[in-house]
């Protein structure tokens, strides 16, 4: 197993904590400017960081949440727009160049990657406790 498979990166969304496997994350950076939605492009947001454009969407469009957490209410939207860290996913459809950047989303805070081995057998939602905080493991939505 590659080293990368054992590491997960944590983040905070709407006061809840989640993890994603680092192998599906392309980049993470701090972006304190609030969101400026660009409806013309039919993308939720377009930002430029270190000279590179990044396309951001609401996390609900990219990640599979538990039914109760995932609804995109107005209140959550506002929280989202102020969130100052950005997580960029990898584009799964370009397999050959697996580090190709995909879509990103804003989060309120990021926890550096940590090692975790989820139980393979269990079908239910995975949870991990790291440094006293419970993180829920998310999986990605199939991107269209």
């Amino acid at each position, binding site marked *: 197993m590659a*080293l990368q498979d054992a590491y997960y990166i944590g983040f905070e969304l709407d006061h809840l904590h989640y993890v994603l496997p680092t192998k599906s994350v392309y980049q993470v950076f701090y972006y304190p400017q609030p969101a400026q939605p660009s409806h013309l492009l039919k993308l939720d947001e377009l930002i430029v960081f270190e000279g590179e454009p990044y396309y951001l969407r609401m996390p609900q469009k990219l990640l599979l949440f538990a039914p109760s957490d995932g609804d995109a209410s107005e209140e959550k939207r506002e929280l989202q727009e102020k969130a100052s860290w950005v997580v960029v996913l990898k584009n799964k459809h370009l397999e050959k160049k697996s580090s190709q950047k995909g879509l990103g989303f804003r989060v309120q805070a990021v926890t550096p990657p940590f090692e975790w081995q989820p139980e393979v057998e269990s079908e239910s939602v995975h949870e991990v406790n790291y440094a006293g905080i419970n993180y829920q493991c998310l999986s990605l939505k199939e991107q269209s």
Partner: protein
Amino acid sequence: MPKPQRAIMRNPFSKLTFTMPTVKTWPTFSTKNRLIVALVLGILAVIFSLVFMLTDKNSLTRNVVRDEIKTVVAKAEKPEPKKVEIDAKSQQEQKDADIAKILVLTNSLQSTLSGKRPLNSAFFKTLDKASSDLTELLKIYNLDDVKELRSLKNQSDIFNNTALLNQSLKKLSDAGNNLLSLTALIPSSNSFTNNNSFLDLQRIPKDSILRKMGEAMQLFAKNIDSVQKNTLDTEALTIIQQAIAQGVTQLGVLEEKSGTLNPQARDTLESLRQTPWSTKGPQLNKDIQVYLEQLSLLKKIIADSDALKIAAETPDPASSIKVLALPQKTEQTPPEAPGAKASNEGEVDYQKLAGVLLQISNDMTSPKTFSNQVFQNFTKWKLMMDEVLENAPPLVTSDDKLVTQNLPVKNQAGLVQLGRRVQESLNLLANLEKSANNLKGQGSTAAIMTAPSALLDLNKISVESPLRPLAMSFDDVQKANLNWQKNILDTALSAALNQAIDHTLEQITSLENNVQSQPPAVIEVLGKIRQIGWQSKAVDSKTTLGALNEQMSLLKKQLADPESITLAAKNKESKAIVPTFRGYVLLSWAPVLLQVSSLVFLISGLLGLRHSADSSAPHPTLIPNEDGVEKRTPYLSSPKETKPGQLVPALNEKIVGLEKKFIQSYQSSEKIMSYTQELMSKVTQLRTVQLGGGAGGAYVHLDASKPLEEIDAAIISLKQIGIRLFLSILENHSSRQLASETEEMNALVEKTEAAFADVKTLVEQINQKAVPMRHSSDQAGIDLLELDINLVLKEVKRWQNDLTDLNQTIMTLHELVGQYV
């Protein structure tokens, strides 16, 4: 692969297919289980090949080999822990082994509880460690209903008393950890009893209602220093307890009569309410009580070491204390180290022991620059010693005279004793890491104080100034500290540092003795020194330096004669061991190692882990349907078949890509370093922030918003780079060491962030209080503010320590990444 081996392997493995049902039910196994089976098979194969070598040389018949194999296989298959009934013999064996461990633990506890132990968490951590060791050891016995101390006659009494000992240790350590907050009472007890402060005993008449409170605080202030230096000073602790009890009672009396107090006394009470005396006092009083009780109980339990030794050798067959379950052996012998086999089952691998000792001895001859790596090495060796001495008898005597004498090591028993002493020294040294860092930190403090345009800048202080000698001695401390860091093994350098610290302490004392006649500049400097607690830290530093020196020279001395160590490892003494199967393994494990790797490779190939297309090699008849296995484990083989011709360029391309990424990582870690250094200097600024507004502003204000904002930004940058570096390291399938180092670095950044948040909150709180700047009439408010600022300084200092740790990890990381560039 030599032919005879394949021949011998076919035999045992064909046997395996029906002795081990696991192989038959192969397809239902998960990846993990397959790996375990592969490992087990690897180990078995090693044993078989060893057996074969034996038979070859001793011309035994093949039948004997088969018998051997049968027993080995039977042993490997025996389900270990499920047995409910444990026979008397294994009961006794287990007890004997555990009693030996208890003796060692008690011994080390005895030395922990003698001598001086400064009031810090390190000491309580040692106790916690001892307690968790004991809990682990005792958990297989039915000792839940143990209540009273027994006189030591046999092994059962030892178990009984050890259970009590463990209970007492837990209570002691819990109460002890709470004692750490004793320091919270120091600032108030000092400042309230200062000249012209609320409770200055010179001013308060004998019959005043405030008198007794003042006395309590003064008693506390006078004795707390002894407790801080030595938590085992029960006399001083008893006095401190009395002082706190009196203080708590008096606070109650004052509260009760608060309606009838005169304005001045009411003012004092109001200020007292804001000190930790009212909040922490009652609990501290209880904690000291528990601590003192448990300490004396503990000492009583471990006092009679002679009786302990006699009782240890007296089994108690009629005992009601039973082993409930034999501990599971979780350790798996990796196939790469067949030599370790020899250390199983109660024997000591003397060769390995000598090897480790020689390695340490060799390392102790080269100079050691101060770094956390040095201490990590101590820990590493200690763990190696723990492992190799796992089954060895405990240290016969911890008599100081014998330990310091360089006893000649003549035989294996002597070697084990030497090993035990080295183990003890290594343990002590490894535990000194934190204190040594503080010692190093003290040098930085001295450097800050003598930095250009700082308080004690030598260029700023005239030759006639009374501060000149002090400034010079601080400068000496800083230089001596740097020199000492260059080689912490050099006794002359550490003696010089010790002397420089002594000299500075003398200078401070002599200035403080004539404090009334000193100019304001001197008083200001003395105030600063008191604020940062330089003197008490200097005492700690001296203790650390002494302990480091003592243990390191002890270690050097004991390992001074490598030849005798080598010889002793071979000298079995009277208790001769007949050359056995295991003995043979010991001597011939080196060539075996080569075979092990090839065997393991072969077996893993069989299991489809790394199946290479070597069709010419005939497969042993281990797995009936190899193709089936292959199909069910597609993820175990490499996803794409690379033809040999394409492999090299593809690999080269990968390596080039990897190198590029590592250069990027290297640059990132350099950036982190410069950020950390920048942060350090910002914190230094924060430490020297002055109370503003003296002339113009109407309020006392800690004007630190600018550095705070800057630090905030720097921490976020640090965090961002840390996470991105980590992602790129993971992306490139780097080594585990690099990954865990990066993980630690990131964790330290988080810690730094949290510590900084504390500092920020404190500063904000101070500014919210906004004490008006009136003249001497509002001394009380200013005093309280000073307490708060002291707290900020303490937090900043703690945080600075975090930063030093961080710097250290980043340097290690830098080094590690550098190795790849």
